[in-house]
């Protein structure tokens, strides 16, 4: 493997395929896109297989001094590896989901998705801060086109809102990056992660980064672009938006905000907790009253992302690992839920919950998959959702019982709105004749949902596979954060501190064994 620039190849394959898709007609474009994304999935598996767990922190490093001011520098650690895997895993499914649903301008559609894949991998693999910014921002263009051209009724409003909201969030981050590079004299992310900025300046830098990542994440109250974008985007667009794009915010926190500004992160942790607590409760309640399935899932995404942020700012390994697993799990589960909506939307062309009912009678397999993903979204043990949420909440419990308490109510509310959705769609009477006449999953839809279901179960039963590559990186991050770690509110009075540590250890690996 040594010397083979696998990351650059992974960026190049979809890019070339995107150009090819523009030149050929619809059928060929579909196949080109599918083959290219499958090749990238293969490359991703090779990457994972060759990733040396416990080896160097940064692996597969490539660099080329092509530009003035920044470098072409790629490399991954375990965290980036997992997010790249998530991206390459979801992409072929997205292409498959668009196979029949997209009929107009197929070549351009596939090209936009392939370009998106290049940029997503680029975001996670970039080791140069400006290369990261370019990849991070560039994703706006294909997503704007995907929502605007192939979206639903109010697609134009949604596309503008998505673009301008995220752009406004990110521009100040660029100024902060310029300042940091000027101060530290390097654009190299690993070096910057170890650079100690003056805590006074950290406050400003942290806020500038926060503006960008909070919008991307999205955190309450800057989440309002998300329901619009999700509802209007085509199914595959929603999958990629919920599955991967939202993870860029969490990745940004874990890669930039926390290691580069530990003091400021500690200083602002209460703010993050407050926003997250509000998000969990408020957006869950909003989700409860939605009539539109996609909107409901979009609001549930905001609630799940709030669990990610509290985990990240818990400043302990449980919280960080939990946050990562929630991100991966949410990427799979929300993607799968959007696919489930897409399946019935393709048949009836409505997302109105009331237009369905009793689907478990005429679509038993569909109901089965939908149930699995509903349970995973709630966080039932045995599914991926449980592992992440449990770890995150265990992490935050060490810091603040109140935050843990409020966020746990979110889990209960989550169960409420998801089960309520499931009851209305799958159970009850078949009150609509057209919904009752819908055929069950076809072969293509099986191929879309079954792999996600398998991975969701795998992550739920044996999360060690996914946590092992990240463990060393999270430990390194935890060590970096140790000096700014805020004191927890649980003042342990136990005479033997050793016992307390043992309990924590147990909690950390509770899902692993």
């Amino acid at each position: 493997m040594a010397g083979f620039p696998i990351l650059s190849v992974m960026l190049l394959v979809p890019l070339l395929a995107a150009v090819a898709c523009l030149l050929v007609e619809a059928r060929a474009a579909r196949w080109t896109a599918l083959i290219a994304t499958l090749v990238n999935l293969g490359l991703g598996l090779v990457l994972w297989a060759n990733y040396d767990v416990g080896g160097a922190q940064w692996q597969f490093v490539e660099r080329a001094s092509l530009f003035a001011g920044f470098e072409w520098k790629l490399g991954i650690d375990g965290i980036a590896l997992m997010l790249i895997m998530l991206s390459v895993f979801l992409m072929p499914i997205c292409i498959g989901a668009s196979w029949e649903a997209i009929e107009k301008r197929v070549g351009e559609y596939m090209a936009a998705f392939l370009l998106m894949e290049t940029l997503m991998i680029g975001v996670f693999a970039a080791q140069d801060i400006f290369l990261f910014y370019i990849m991070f921002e560039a994703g706006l263009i294909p997503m704007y086109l995907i929502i605007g051209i192939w979206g639903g009724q109010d697609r134009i409003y949604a596309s503008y809102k998505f673009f301008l909201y995220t752009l406004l969030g990110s521009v100040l981050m660029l100024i902060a990056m310029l300042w940091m590079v000027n101060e530290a004299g390097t654009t190299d992310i690993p070096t910057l992660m170890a650079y100690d900025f003056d805590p006074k300046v950290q406050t400003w830098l942290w806020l500038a980064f926060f503006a960008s990542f909070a919008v991307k994440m999205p955190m309450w109250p800057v989440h309002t672009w998300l329901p619009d974008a999700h509802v209007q985007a085509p199914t595959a667009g929603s999958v990629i938006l919920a599955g991967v794009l939202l993870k860029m915010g969490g990745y940004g926190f874990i890669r930039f905000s926390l290691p580069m500004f530990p003091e400021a992160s500690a200083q602002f942790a209460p703010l993050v907790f407050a926003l997250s607590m509000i998000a969990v409760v408020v957006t869950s309640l909003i989700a409860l009253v939605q009539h539109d399935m996609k909107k409901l899932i979009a609001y549930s995404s905001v609630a799940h992302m709030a669990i990610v942020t509290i985990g990240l700012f818990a400043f302990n390994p449980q919280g960080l690992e939990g946050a990562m697993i929630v991100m991966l799990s949410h990427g799979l589960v929300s993607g799968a839920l959007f696919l489930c909506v897409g399946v019935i939307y393709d048949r009836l062309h409505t997302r109105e919950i009331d237009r369905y009912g009793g689907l478990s009678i005429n679509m038993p397999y569909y109901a089965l998959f939908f149930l699995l993903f509903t349970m995973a979204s709630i966080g039932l043990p045995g599914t991926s959702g449980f592992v992440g949420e449990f770890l995150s909440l265990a992490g935050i419990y060490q810091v603040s019982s109140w935050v843990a308490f409020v966020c746990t109510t979110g889990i209960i509310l989550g169960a409420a709105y998801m089960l309520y959705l499931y009851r209305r769609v799958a159970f009850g009477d078949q009150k609509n004749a057209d919904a009752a006449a819908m055929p069950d999953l076809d072969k293509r839809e099986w191929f879309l949902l079954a792999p996600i279901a398998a991975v969701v179960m795998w992550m739920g039963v044996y999360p060690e596979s996914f946590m092992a590559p990240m463990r060393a990186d999270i430990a390194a991050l935890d060590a970096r954060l140790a000096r700014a770690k805020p004191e927890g509110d649980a003042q342990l009075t136990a005479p033997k501190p050793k016992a307390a540590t043992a309990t924590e250890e147990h909690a950390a690996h509770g899902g692993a064994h």
Partner: protein
Amino acid sequence: MDFVQSFRLTAPEVLFSLSGLVLLLGAAWSRSDAGARIITWLAVAVLAVAAALTAPTLLSGAKGPATLAFSGLFAATAFAALAKLLIFAAAGASLIVAPAFFQRTRDYRPEYPVLVLFAVLGMCLMVSSTNLLTLYIGLELNSLAAYVLAAFLRNDDRSAEAGLKYFVLGSLASGILLFGTSLTYGFAGTIDYAGIANALTGKISTGAVFGLVFVFAGLAFKISAVPFHMWTPDVYEGAPTPVTTFFASAPKVAALALTVIVAMTAFGNQVAAWQPIVIFAALASIVVGALGAIGQTNLKRLLAYSSINNVGFLLIGLAVATPKGVAALLIYLAIYVAMTIGGFVALLMFKDADGEPVEDLSDIAGISRHRKVLAACFAMIMFSLAGIPPLFGFWGKFVVFQAAVEADMIALAAIGIAASVIGAFYYLKVVKVMYFDEPAMKATGKSDWMHQALLAICALAISPAGYLLTKCLDGLSLAAAASLITP
């Protein structure tokens, strides 16, 4: 300083004077369409030769006394050379696109290339000026040619109106500038930039401040910076599109380079006096350019406001007042020229089935369905003008803001970049109209292959492939900035 040396340094200018006169003579004899075309291509060839003569100056990073010609009236520095190369490229593009545009109405006449050559000569003098007189002669030579060019379509009312407006307001600006230079001369006792810099050190007198303000006001007019931007949309809309292409690119480069020269050399010791003016003009241009563009339905007016908006970002590079800032401005300028030429060439290619040019935003609705490549190129240019990575327009904004941050002007950078989001709105609107709206099927006409080739070159330059040029641009612009600031 012997004459041979002086003529060697001014070779491109001498070439322009002579060839301009010869071509004018040729134009007097040849009234046919074919003759006009031949003269156009000869003018392009002259520009190419001049570029070949200028390039070594830039590559060698020429600076200091060795660059002065005619007893210090003219300086062929690397800075001037870089500006000239951009001017030549822009002028060449405006010449190449012209014949196909005028062909339809049979309005093409050989005066067009001749006037462009004389305007270029004026611009060369502007960017090589070392004193207020060379500045004024260059500026007027350029302006007089430009007034005529704006009114080139004699039978078109809009064109005549544009020419008249440009003439009246341009003369006013020249008057203001002249007033400023005379005040400056009065208080400094010299017209030489270096002499002015020596005379105006330390605390500056009120009279000299007046001179400085008037000079900057006159120059702001020429670069169409807010609050002296009002003429821009009207002139850009009324002038024939190839002429607008020219106005938006070459004279902008010359006037901005001239502003940099005056600010950094003549008033180089009075940075504190002019910095607030430039900062105001920069931020006001960004905001007014962006807000003004939102309501426009005519594409030429829209691009006019876009150029006002871009001038704001360029001026941030000047406001920083460091060599890095000047270098950033030059990089931005180079990218701006590519984007502007590309934008206007695409505009020239929007024609209806009869070959009639269409200029309205609603006319290009849904054009991405039937003119895929053209729409994609124009969309790229729009995103690039908005400064969205990975397009190369981002790099221009990036270097400008980097210079501002390095000079510790973080508030300026933060406000400027936040205001750029307003601009993104109307660039997005153009993309929306082309890609999201139902096809209007108006802009269906075929385009000339020369236009296609030029658009392809511009699109390639502003595509992510453009980043491969960053090293080269960085080196050249730093050398150019150094030649200006450390004489």
